[in-house]
């Protein structure tokens, strides 16, 4: 379990860095959704199934959908900066 959580946390941090640095906003938003998914797995690992479900359905699915709708309405990619 310890090994799994190490892997997941490293994955989570990597995804978070990706989501900040990716120029393509859709990809960045998907990365944030993936961070939420990994976090919900972590919640499952430390015995919080309720929260894991909430994070997966609200944090990952709905929030990401709202983000994507927002990005589609605006610009797809980050100009410099």
């Amino acid at each position: 379990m310890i090994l799994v959580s190490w892997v997941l946390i490293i994955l989570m941090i990597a995804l978070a860095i990706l989501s900040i640095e990716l120029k393509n906003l859709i990809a960045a938003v998907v990365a944030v959704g993936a961070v939420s998914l990994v976090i919900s797995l972590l919640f499952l690992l430390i015995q919080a199934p309720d929260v894991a479900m909430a994070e997966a359905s609200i944090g990952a699915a709905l929030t990401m959908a709202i983000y994507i709708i927002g990005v589609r309405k605006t610009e797809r990619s980050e100009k410099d900066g």
Partner: protein
Amino acid sequence: MIYYVGSFLLIALGLYAVIIKKNLIKILIGLDLIASGVNLLIISIGYVKGGTAPIFSRAGLKASMMVDPIPQALTLTAIVIDASEMALAVAFVVLLYKHYGTLDIKKIRSLKW
């Protein structure tokens, strides 16, 4: 302990994105990361080594072998609050884009901090 480290890093990355990034969507991503980091931190505080989820779904589960239910309840609240905040934020960003035609914070009149 790795959970703590992970959540601290998430919070720091989120703050970094909010402060440094110039793109509105990136700022929202930063806010989201901070919130996720805080949630992870709360849940990790409630963990008890070798504990099970606090649900008496079958016989034989002992209360002394369960993790703390309060942080889970708090996180449930926090997740919903974050999601609603994010929805509102995206709405603001869409309208800002409508008014200014850009997502770049430097080009929006007084949005500086």
